[in-house]
Every structure is written in C-alpha cells, then in structure tokens.
C-alpha cells in the first residue's frame, strides 16, 4: 500500500468518526425535538436559534458534572464498561459502504474503510460484543438494579441476535455474498433487497430495535422498574458515553439496514444522474441519498419510541423465541425453495 492510500484511508476513518459522533450528538437534539412535536410541544429552543446549540450545552454539562465511583464498585471495570460500550459502537462503521468508488485524477478512492469478505458477520460480531459494555458496567457498579438491567440486556441481546442472524441468512441466500460492498453494488438502481425480502426486513428491523435497546425493547433501562437500569450508578461523562453509545448504535444500525435492505447509496435513475453530473458529483449524490435513508431510519426509531409503550419482560421473550425465530426459519425455508425453483 502506498503512502497516499494510507493517508486517504486515515482521512476517511477520521471523517466517518467525526460524522458518526456529530450525528449521535444531534440525535439527542433530534430526539427531544421530535418527541416534542409528537406531543404537541415545542422542545428545546433556548440554546441558540431553535435550540440548535442544545447538544453542546448538554455535552458541556456532562463534562463538568461530578465524577462518582461508588465505594463498593470495582473501579477498573466501572471505567471499562462505558469505554467498551462506546468503542464497540464506533468500530461498527468500518465495513459500511458510504458511497460508490470515486475517481479523482485517475485514482480510485473507495468510500468504504475496508471491504472484508465477511462484512455482515463483522457487524454481527461487533453488535454481540456491545453487550459486554452494558454487562460489565452493570455488574461493576455493585447495585442490584444495575445488575438486573445488565442481565436483562444480556438475555435480550442474545435472544434477538438469533433471529437477527436467521433473517440475515435469508438475505444471504438472495445476495450470495457476505461483503457489504458487494451487497450494495448488487442493488443497483431500484433492485433493493427489501423487495425480495420484506419479511426478513421486518424481522431485522424488530431485532435492530431490540439490539439497540430502543423502545419498545428498552427494558435494560426501564425507569419504572429498575431506577435507571444498568447506568443507575453512573454520572458525568461515563453516563454520557452510555447514552452516546446508544445513539451511535442507532446510527450504525440505520446505516446497516439502509445498506442491506434499502439499496445503500443506490437510487432509481442513478445512471442518468451520474452521466450528467460527472464522476465526482455522482457518487457524492449517492452518499447524500444514503444519508437521507439513514436519517429516515433514525426518524423511524424515534417515531416508534414516542408511539409504542414498553413490552413486559415475558412478552419480550415470547416475541423473540416463539414468534420471531420460527418466522425467521420459515422465511429461510421459503426463500431457499423459491431460489431453487427459479434456478
């Protein structure tokens, strides 16, 4: 690899990190604003015009708050918990294809940090690792509510990972590859996978809600039962990291859903547009379309949050094990049969 390539990759990584952090930051603002609109309110509007500086004020507050480590907590693990949560949230973006390859001065610049051929499994592994942040933090705080929250998070994540994996398997039968870059390329134009895998998409969507601990599956941080859930004992920026990790996870899972099922950077009529605006602007428009899809998904996450109440824990487990997993298996079987018949 040349030095220039390394520099380009490095720049891309930094840009993606910055983008995901800024989006996570403004997701907190969007969440409050959208919640307000759904409830006929105004939302934060004091910090800057329309409250646009609210996330900065919140961040500043988080940094300046007192740092509390409970006496009976395990100090090292207490710090490791939120660090792990934010680390696993951030590294998921490595395999997402943000746009088509750009050609600048005869040089091909891929808008994807790395296109490993097990991309989906990598995302899957990172997601499954994410539960450690919650579990370690919940256990290390030495508080029964935190522990209960952590344990709920663990069992919920494991249960929904199974049906998530099964719904992905059906998708893989259609695409025939594990690499996210190739999956995105295959959906050129309007050949989006959601048209071939509608059931799989709904299953994946439900599981994505469960994996990111969003309502109606936010039982790990259920205030009415568990005080604050796994982050009861956390304060200051460590709490901020947990909250931040949730929003980054939401961003990443929206990106994954947009890539896997909604065509990533592809949109109908992209060839015509690319032929008219040139080789640099074309991929950039694709990236903009991709981000529009991501924002729509983030909006959908928030829309659902302010609509549906939380599940009861046994309902959650019933849904995961008795409904989603059989549905996912049936989806695999049907997909397999259809593919064999068509070939």
């Amino acid at each position, binding site marked *: 690899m040349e030095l220039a390539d390394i520099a380009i990759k490095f720049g891309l990584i930094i840009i993606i990190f910055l983008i995901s952090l800024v989006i996570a930051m403004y997701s907190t603002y969007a969440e409050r604003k959208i919640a307000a609109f759904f409830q006929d309110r105004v939302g934060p509007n004091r910090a800057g015009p329309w409250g646009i500086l609210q996330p900065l004020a919140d961040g500043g507050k988080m940094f300046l708050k007192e740092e509390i480590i409970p006496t009976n907590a395990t100090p090292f693990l207490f710090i490791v918990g939120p660090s792990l949560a934010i680390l696993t949230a951030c590294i998921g973006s490595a395999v997402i294809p943000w746009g088509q390859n750009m050609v600048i001065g005869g040089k091909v610049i891929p808008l994807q940090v790395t296109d490993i051929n097990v991309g989906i499994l*990598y995302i899957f*592994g990172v997601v499954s690792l994410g539960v450690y942040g919650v579990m370690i933090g919940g256990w290390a705080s030495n508080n029964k509510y935190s522990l209960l929250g952590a344990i709920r998070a663990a069992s919920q994540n*494991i249960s929904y990972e199974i049906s998530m994996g099964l719904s992905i398997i059906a998708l893989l039968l259609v695409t025939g590859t594990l690499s996210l870059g190739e999956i995105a390329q295959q959906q050129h134009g309007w050949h989006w996978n959601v048209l071939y895998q509608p059931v799989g998409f709904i299953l994946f969507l439900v599981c994505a809600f469960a994996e990111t601990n969003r309502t109606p599956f936010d039982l790990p941080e259920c205030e009415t039962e568990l005080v604050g859930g796994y982050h009861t004992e956390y304060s200051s920026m460590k709490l901020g990291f947990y909250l931040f990790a949730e929003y980054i996870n939401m961003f990443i899972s929206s990106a994954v859903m947009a890539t896997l099922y909604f065509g990533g950077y592809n949109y109908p009529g992209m060839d015509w547009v690319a032929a008219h605006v040139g080789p640099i602007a074309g991929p950039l428009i694709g990236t903009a379309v991709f981000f529009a899809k991501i924002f729509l998904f983030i909006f959908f996450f928030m829309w659902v949050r302010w609509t549906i109440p939380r599940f009861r824990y046994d309902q959650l487990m019933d849904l995961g094990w008795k409904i989603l997993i059989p549905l996912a298996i049936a989806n695999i079987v049907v997909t397999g049969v259809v593919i064999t018949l068509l070939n």
Partner: protein
Amino acid sequence: MSTFYFIAFLSIFFSILVISAKNPVHSILYLILTFFTFTIHYILMNAQFLAIVNFIVYMGAILVLFLYTLMLINLNKESEPVKPFMVKIAAVFGGGILAVALVSSLKSLGVSDPVVLKNPELGLVKNLGKVLFNEFLLPFEVSSVLLLSAMVGAVLLATKDKETKATI
C-alpha cells in the same frame, strides 16, 4: 512472526490469569480476552470466517451466558465451601501426574517441518463453504444432528410439567 509470538504470549498470559483470578467474574473476563487473542490468531492465519465465527459464537454468545450465570450467583468469600484436607492432597497429586505427563510428552516431541497450506485462501468463506459442503458434507450434517439433539434436550429440560402446573 513477531506478531504471532506476541499474541501467543498474550493468550498464555491471559489463560494463566483465568485460572489464577480470585473473582470468578474477573476470571471470565480474562477468558474473553483469551478468546479475543484466539480470534487474532485466526486472522493471522488468514482464516477470516473462523475468526469471525469464533468472535461471534464464543465471545458474543457463550461467554455472555457464562458471565450471565456467574453474575447471578452470589459468590462471596463467606459462601465459599471449605475444601477438606484430603481433597487438596488429591488435587496436588492429580496436578503432579498431569505435569509429569506433559513433561514426558514434550521430551519425546520432535520439531516437525512447518505446515504449508496448499491454498492460502482456504480460510475465506467461499472456499471453506465449498470444502464443507462437498468433501465433508456427511460429518457436517452429522454434527448438526448432534446440535439438534442437544437443543431438543434443552427444551425438554426447560419445559414445565403440565400436571404440577395444573395443581397450583
């Protein structure tokens, strides 16, 4: 090569910590790190699929369940069972025999030629899938039957007795 030695050192170091850690939860956390070093080993061998499966299945699922169970058990110093003297003697004896066996087997070990893969791309998903579903189809399916039977057994153990439920 130096990367290999460094990672190998880390795996052995963490696995020693697994058995020497006083707190069982810490011990599991070291086990997670050990498995993580294994994942890196797989990547060094260009076995991406095995690496990621090791990552998902062992680190992401099995050890989470381990951790889950251990967190629920109240493992205080007071509740630790006191081991009788005879058990300690037996443990030392057994450990000694194991050490003798290991040392003797190491002594008779000859340095073999390094194994060179005929196809360095064997670990990639496509090649692995072809090998699994052509040459090793029967063992693959048999092992899936084994897993299925384990699953059925677990469900059987977990289901409640209908009659006792009726009386309550």
